[in-house]
């Protein structure tokens, strides 16, 4: 279980599928039925073409390290230094996350390294999507 002092997301009707997905061990994204754009963060219409015909689908969970900082100041629920990363998902969107099972150093955190999703429970309702170096 993660440190409960960590900032806790509060799902809304438009994002609930995402948080139900992480709880079920799936990284759920949305795809526009009209123009096929895959997008994130969640909303019930396509930010590319405004179509309301969109579908939720489980993403591969694969991505690469797009950019990050290694934060050195104290934040509730975290032990510095820790990386705040942005992951380029294989399906196209990017998302913020933390990189686990990896030293939090510039040497270990190489941009464009292959990553895979790893879920960790924050509490009974919220599971966060993290990423770890891909096992190949």
């Amino acid at each position, binding site marked *: 279980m993660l440190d409960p002092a960590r900032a806790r997301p509060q799902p809304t009707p438009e994002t609930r599928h995402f948080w139900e997905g992480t709880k079920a061990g799936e990284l759920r994204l949305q795809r526009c039925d009209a123009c096929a754009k895959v997008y994130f*963060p969640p909303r019930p219409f396509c930010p590319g073409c405004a179509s309301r015909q969109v579908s939720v689908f489980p993403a591969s969970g694969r991505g690469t390290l797009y*950019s990050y*900082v290694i934060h*050195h*100041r104290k934040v509730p629920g975290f032990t510095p*230094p820790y990386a705040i990363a*942005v992951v380029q998902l294989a399906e196209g969107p990017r998302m913020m996350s933390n990189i686990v099972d990896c030293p939090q150093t510039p040497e270990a955190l190489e*941009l464009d390294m292959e990553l895979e999703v790893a879920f960790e429970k924050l509490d009974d309702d919220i599971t966060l999507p993290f990423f770890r170096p891909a096992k190949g």
Partner: protein
Amino acid sequence: MTPKTVAIVGAAETTRLGVIPDMSQIQLHADAALNAMADAGLKPSDIDGVATAVETPQQIAHYLGITPSWVDGTSVGGCSFMIHVRHAAAAIASGLCKTVLITHGESGRSQVGRPPRAVPPSSLAGQFEQPFGPMGPPSLFPIPVLRYMKTYGVTHEQIAMVSVVQREWAGRNPRATFRDPITVEDVLNSRMIAYPFRLLQCCLVTDGGGALILTAADRAKDFPRKPVYILGTGESVETPMVSQMEDFTTSRAFRVAGPTAFREAGISHADVDHLMIYDAFAHLPLYGLEDLGFVPRGEAGRFIADRNTAPGGKLPVNTNGGGLSYMHSGMYGMYALQESVRQMRGIAPAQIPGARISVCHGVGGMFAASGTIIFGNEAP
């Protein structure tokens, strides 16, 4: 708007800058506003337009005793004041009001009477960024930097030169918070905040404020100060989440606001004598120089390291010392505007001799918003 028809006729900062624990945030607005009204020779009853950010126009109008017929509460972060200038110029040009007061006050350091800044946990940032450990701008703003550095082969030493050069400018400014010279080694040995950025690559946290007064250019010559004309303006927003920027090597909001202002002003880059690029963190001048088209993509690091923006360089940038060395209360845009106005009036501490055109470029949030104002000191 009809360009080139509006001018700045009053401009001032708070009497003091830095640590001001004896004033609440709204009083910092008022102190700056009273100074700007004195600068213009105006009373509150002469003002019919009010614009401000974080605090609301009704708070400021009531506090100062103004009855406005036009207000703007655009609050998109530190470049809100550039956007206020743009909106005020359009409002004056179209006859909605005659004389606009724009105020900023921020108890960024002393935190006296400052509303709390919290990210709601149900917002998109609250759900999809906050759980991963950011804590304010120092943790979020530098997130794109490593991608920019890898894309263009920019070095830590080149980016460190941004802080070094701005400290040189600050050394010429008696009101700057930090004035002692620093070296690249000093920057790269300062305390790590959020790798790759260290303390000397992050802005100050201070108290202060500033205010501007705008009116029609044809009235401007009746005021005591040399008028500063608004030649061009631009604005845009991109995303409230830095993780969702289209491209981590460039700001879409910069690329809309900057060129819009240049087109409206009808000037080229070679016409620019003085440039302010809002520098909350050391990478912003790099993005600004490239996104506004002053240098080709990926070359801003070398351009700064080669001292082109330093005292004596061909393009003086952030001549007050910037948010890195002059002052930064949290929303720095007003102070960048004040330095552009001083340069155009010919009264800046580090005055650029003969400067006729100044570009002032702001950012709001973490690449969330942008506003660009182009000033001139000759009647258009």
